[in-house]
């Protein structure tokens, strides 16, 4: 059995799904100031056994809500972020989102979260089985 003692777990503050697109944000400003964050991994439950052909990740740069997404009002997004490592482990797609460490933790006001698109996959099941963050701390 692997100890998870040094890890923190965060579930989404906001979550919306539209077809193959996931909008998600987390509030990490509550992590104690004297704690050092080493890595942030986004775990997305994944029901296909094969690694998705294409996954796009963008940063959200304006306010949004699940209701607005349902109504077709989408927030602004950055360009596709490259260099994010992904792996498929036991029915979860794991994306290394450590690069958002400072923004999500220290700049809560400008933290609108990210957009993940997994092409040709209906992600509606994520509403009942939400993605989560696993954060390594010391």
């Amino acid at each position, binding site marked *: 059995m*692997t*100890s998870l003692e040094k890890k*923190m777990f965060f579930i989404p503050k906001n979550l919306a799904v539209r077809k193959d697109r996931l909008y998600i944000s987390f509030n990490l400003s*509550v992590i*104690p100031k004297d704690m050092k964050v080493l890595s942030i991994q986004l775990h997305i439950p994944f029901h296909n056994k094969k690694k998705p052909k294409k996954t796009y990740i963008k940063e959200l740069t304006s306010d949004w809500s699940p209701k607005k997404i349902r109504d077709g009002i989408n927030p602004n997004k950055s360009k596709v972020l490259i260099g994010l490592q992904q792996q498929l482990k036991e029915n979860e797609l794991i994306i290394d989102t450590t690069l958002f460490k400072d923004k999500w933790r220290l700049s809560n006001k400008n933290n609108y979260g990210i957009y993940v698109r997994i092409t040709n996959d209906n992600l509606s099941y994520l509403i009942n089985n939400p993605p989560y963050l696993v954060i390594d701390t010391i």
Partner: protein
Amino acid sequence: MRVFHGIIEIAGQMGILCGALKRKGHIAVGYNTFQSYLDYKEHLINTDAFEIRKMLKQIVNFFDIFHFHYGATIMPNFEDLEIIKNKKKKIIMHHWGNEIRFHDLAMLNNPYVYTGDSPPNNDIHQKLLSITKYIDEAIVQDYEVLPHVANYYKKVHIMPIAIDIRKFKPHYPSRETKKPLILHAPTNPDFKGTAYIEKAIEELRHTHLFDYKRIEKMSNAHVVEMYKEADIIVDQVCCGSYGLLSVESMALGKPVIVYIREDLKDSFPSGLPVVNGNPDNIKQAIKDLIESPERRHELGVKGREFAKKYHSSNVVVERLLNIYSKLS
């Protein structure tokens, strides 16, 4: 397994239990909406009622087990319990004392008990009726708390207070000390019987050599640092049972004075190594320990063993996992 703890942190227990569950490989998160000078933060997300309510849907969908504390749940009027129940998730309530201590019942076997912080009996009754509409099982730390909830739940488990024993290195009192340091840390002076303790202290100052410190409004981490210097620790002398301060003191190898009700003595594991002191005999209890450095040391050694055996979170979590496994 994914375990939710919330939403009021009492005596660091949510964090300690979450830490122990994580060591066993489970995802466990304590959401705390009650922040105090005690400054508990390990394995917790310190949030507020507004923020946590906004996340209700995600919380209910993510976690498998809901372990609530102190008679509080996420939504007002326990509205979340029906939602959680409908999702077929497991729920348990952990009661700690003041929130469910019926005034008359508490005084039945205890002339000293202070219940000024407990709500009126009828409020407690109504609250327990609301909770038990959805929750069948509860946890309490001992037989002092048990009778207050026993008639409401289908099953009530006794599970001792947990501490992370790794954080308490023993500092046994020296047998050579001529001027012992007595510590008392009242989070709630009326409940702990501080007035009785300090009256005894003042009287003993005329005849005995010792130092006395009263510790208040400090973080738990800071208080524990101060305990290390103590030769005698006086916990609560009115309640009739022992609490976290006693357990932490024993883990540090300190002799503890605390009131254990006569009718409850046998309900604790045998050999509970504390000095029994109530408002009527507290002066004598303190005096005996001031006069006996050898006994202080001996109690400290026994206390450490007792805390390790019965209150280590590694021991307590096994009991907790067993309780979880049988929840329906």
